[in-house]
């Protein structure tokens, strides 16, 4: 199993470590609820160095990415980030990803558990002057997230962080270490993601100076457990749960990143057809106010007829009740629809709601 450059720190902090995407990762330090609320109210730091990073260079890099991703890469300019997805010919999703325009090249950030699959798939579609490289082992990635993230990091850099807009990035130094400072995250909070050299000594130093800077704000380390509850409160999809090769971006609510008018791309004919025929099912969010919680794989019903399955579900630490997402027949996808979740053999009433579950200002 792989380890991130911060493995020793996680161990010394007493983190509970689990296998995730081929890495030994911290799932929690003190408890999911406490860590979750630190990110919502203060500032938390995640080691997400397991994520995969690819570089795409060459004069045909743009046309290659236009063909392999669903969003319009021509709209990017240097310093901009784009959320996107890659699709198979049948419209099923290979992975969701971030595309960074770095001036003379692009950087793709993919899910850890898909790194090799994505790389092989992309490589199989390379044509012309395209140089695709897997740089995952060269990058460490720290996500600093929460309302106090800007104040924390601003103490450590001369870059004016307040000038970096959402889904933009810049290169700069934090505590003297060169890195990519990206105004992105998976929590719904103000936050930054820092891409730096994957070196244990450098990473440990950066980790420590960030914690020193954030001490007055109550900074804490956050594990993958809270990362999952934070993203779910925002209705963000998780590959392997809410999206995979059997789901397509339109039914997953990712129509906004799927630019059917940008020209040809892999999966487009299938997606155009699905749109013309009308979506048969949609990914929706639902809440239940009873003391029962939806879990991945639970059946969704209406009048004792099966209408779908839960893809993600949890107790929401912010709302203190159960929230979940799942695909339901189009007839039940409108907010306000009443559905049932089968929990231990009983149908528990739930309501379809508009996403996100937690409104951020």
């Amino acid at each position: 199993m792989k380890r991130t450059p911060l493995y020793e720190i996680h161990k010394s902090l007493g983190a509970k470590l689990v296998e995730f995407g081929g890495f030994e990762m911290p799932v929690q330090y003190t408890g999911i609820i406490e860590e979750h609320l630190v990110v919502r109210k203060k500032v938390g730091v995640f080691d997400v160095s397991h994520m995969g990073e690819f570089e795409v260079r060459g004069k045909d890099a743009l046309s290659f990415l236009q063909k392999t991703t669903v969003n319009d890469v021509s709209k990017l300019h240097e310093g901009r980030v784009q959320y996107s997805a890659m699709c198979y010919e049948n419209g099923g999703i290979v992975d969701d990803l971030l595309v960074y325009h770095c001036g003379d090249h692009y950087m793709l950030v993919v899910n850890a558990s898909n790194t090799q699959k994505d790389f092989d798939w992309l490589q199989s579609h390379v044509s012309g002057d395209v140089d695709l490289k897997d740089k995952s082992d060269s990058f460490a990635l720290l996500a600093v997230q929460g309302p106090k993230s800007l104040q924390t990091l601003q103490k450590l850099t001369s870059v004016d962080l307040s000038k970096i807009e959402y889904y933009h990035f810049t290169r700069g130094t934090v505590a003297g270490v060169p890195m990519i400072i990206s105004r992105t995250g998976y929590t719904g909070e103000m936050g930054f993601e820092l891409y730096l050299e994957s070196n244990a000594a450098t990473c440990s130093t950066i980790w420590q100076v960030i914690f020193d800077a954030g001490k007055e704000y109550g900074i804490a380390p956050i594990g993958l457990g809270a990362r999952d509850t934070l993203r779910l409160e925002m209705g963000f999809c998780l590959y392997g749960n809410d999206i995979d090769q059997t789901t397509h971006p339109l039914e997953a609510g990712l129509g906004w990143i799927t630019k059917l008018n940008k020209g040809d791309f892999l999966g487009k004919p299938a997606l155009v057809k699905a749109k013309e025929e009308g979506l048969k099912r949609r990914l929706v969010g639902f809440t239940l106010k009873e003391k029962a919680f939806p879990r991945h794989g639970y059946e969704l019903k209406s009048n004792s007829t099966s209408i779908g399955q839960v893809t993600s579900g949890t107790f929401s630490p912010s709302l203190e009740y159960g929230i979940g997402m799942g695909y339901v027949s189009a007839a039940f996808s409108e907010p306000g629809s009443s559905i049932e979740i089968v929990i231990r053999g009983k149908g528990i009433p739930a309501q379809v709601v508009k996403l996100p579950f937690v409104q951020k200002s």
Partner: protein
Amino acid sequence: MNFPANLQYTKEHEWIRVEGDAGWIGITDYAQGELGDVVFVELPSVGTKLQQGKTFGTIEAVKAVSDLYAPISGEVLELNKEIQSTPELVNKEPYDKGWMVKVKIANASELASLMDVESYKKLIAK
């Protein structure tokens, strides 16, 4: 992790503390740690007859759900009402304020099939 010597344990990570013909039941420190933050405990009502080895309730944690197995057969005499409003007691004090049910032990000879603390420690060390 803490495992009191005056308790008996199951392989599903429940404990029972016996006083006369009454038994207090809860989950172990190891079990609460594995589950993570407990947010709800579903328990049977007073008067329910538990059967050794059978499920008698459910624990919902943030990320996981787990069944509770009866260490012993017997009638439920009392529920811990405090954990209904403050389920985190199961995490913080699994052997004290985090207890779940008190039962009237139906057949004390069943206790012989439970583990003592040393056997339980060996089980979780595996």
